[in-house]
């Protein structure tokens, strides 16, 4: 065990319940798993509290995922928070970490995830409801175990590129044969900083390029959508609006994608 790993293990052993923002390195997750810690993924809505409770800390016009993380951090009783602030996340998370470190009485530990050993992305290419697969991918960040019995690769009929959205309801509009691309794919592969993998798409299937509003990835999503021969660029804030739903429905139907 290296000195760094030893000190990580000594530190993490003191905690029982930790929160994570972004994807901390596998060493952190492994140490948490080894010590049977409860891990809360703060990027997901976990508490029934108004997003407004984040407003004293973050501007209202800010990534809804990080506003959600702040609400979770304020309302869950955690012993520590690990925030990935490396190239696999974003500056918005770095600034959020700074703010939380001052606002909370617990350690807020910044990490820099440079993991580059791919675990594969079978769920991204499986034939199952998109929402279920995205939930499984996001749940997967709490475990360092390799994937058992990966489902077979399906023939894609549509693509979803992007991060797991703040509001998963948009995913119900896609067929089960939708392949997942973008950062969500990097997430399943456990290489969140793999920008080459993030930029991949399949030009042969109609693809929705999705980003959270106010995220820097809106630029990448729009850029890639322009390169893709059959794409829809979409950014959504806290909830999927009626017009965003209608755009996705119309895009898929008019592109001849079977439900």
């Amino acid at each position, binding site marked *: 065990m290296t000195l760094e790993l030893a000190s990580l293990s000594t530190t993490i052993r003191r905690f029982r319940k930790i929160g994570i923002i972004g994807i901390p390195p596998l060493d952190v997750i492994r140490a948490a798993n080894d010590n049977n810690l409860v891990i809360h993924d703060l990027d997901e809505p976990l508490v029934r509290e108004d997003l407004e409770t984040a407003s004293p800390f973050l501007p209202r016009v800010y990534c809804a995922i990080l506003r959600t993380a702040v609400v979770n951090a304020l309302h869950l009783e955690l012993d520590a928070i690990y925030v990935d602030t490396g190239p696999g996340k974003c500056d918005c998370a770095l600034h959020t970490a700074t703010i939380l470190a001052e606002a909370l009485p617990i350690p807020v530990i910044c990490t820099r995830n440079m993991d580059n050993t791919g675990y594969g992305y079978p769920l991204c290419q499986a034939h199952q409801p998109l929402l279920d697969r995205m939930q499984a991918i996001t749940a997967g960040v709490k475990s360092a175990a390799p994937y058992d019995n990966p489902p077979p690769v399906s023939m894609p009929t549509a693509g979803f590129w992007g991060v797991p959205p703040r509001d998963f309801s948009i995913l119900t509009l896609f067929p089960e044969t939708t392949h997942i691309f973008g950062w969500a794919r990097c997430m399943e592969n456990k290489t969140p900083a793999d920008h080459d993998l993030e930029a991949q798409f399949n030009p042969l299937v109609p693809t929705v390029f999705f980003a959270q509003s106010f995220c820097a990835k809106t630029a990448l999503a729009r850029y890639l959508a322009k390169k893709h021969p*059959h794409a*829809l660029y979409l950014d959504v804030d806290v909830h999927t*609006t*009626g*017009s965003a739903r*209608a*755009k996705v*429905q*119309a*895009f898929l*139907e*008019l*592109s001849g994608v079977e439900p």
Partner: protein
Amino acid sequence: MILGDFGTSYCKFLDLDAPNPEPSIIATKDLPQDTRVDLATGHNGKRFSARYVNELIALARGGEAMIVEDDYVLLDCGSRDIKFIRYQNGKLADMGWNAECGASMGFTIELLERYYDLDYSGLKVPEQTFSVTCGVLGMSDIFDTVISGVPVSEAVARFVKGIAINAYRFAGSPARLYLSGGLCDNPLFVGSFPCQVTPLGRFVLLRGLETEARQRRANTLA
């Protein structure tokens, strides 16, 4: 089979079983609450029918039925939103629906006409324009301009031109576009676009609904 396009300000209907089906129109505020149709689209459509076609699909199907070219941009300017579809080689290439920043533009144009007692057919397209992104925000530009001594009709015309330019940019600044919606009847609005405009009238979504209805009928019979 009765089709209905339930807009924010106006509702349009078409009875496919009538001998010579002709669309009819009624102000939304006068619509009986117990109205029921067989197939609906539009902002309020879900309340009046069990079967609903989303507005972008209705617009696209309407465009497919009414436009012969393979490459075109069709822009719909409604009371509360603007949306467009772009077809290339007969296939959907791009689309947009702006219900937030395009909010209430059509509604505001109509409101101003009544408030200031104007007749848009008598107004010339002005040289100048406002930078308008939203109907509500654009109103304060009108008031400021009027206070500075510009005639009301000129200020409103600048506002209308600003809305047309905003909608044109939203649709991707094409050299030519087809226009859908009640604003097709507003010569000042149509003339304010900095490109060639072909107005298709306010029944494009209804035509799209007709295409969908006939398709669904054919599928049921097959």
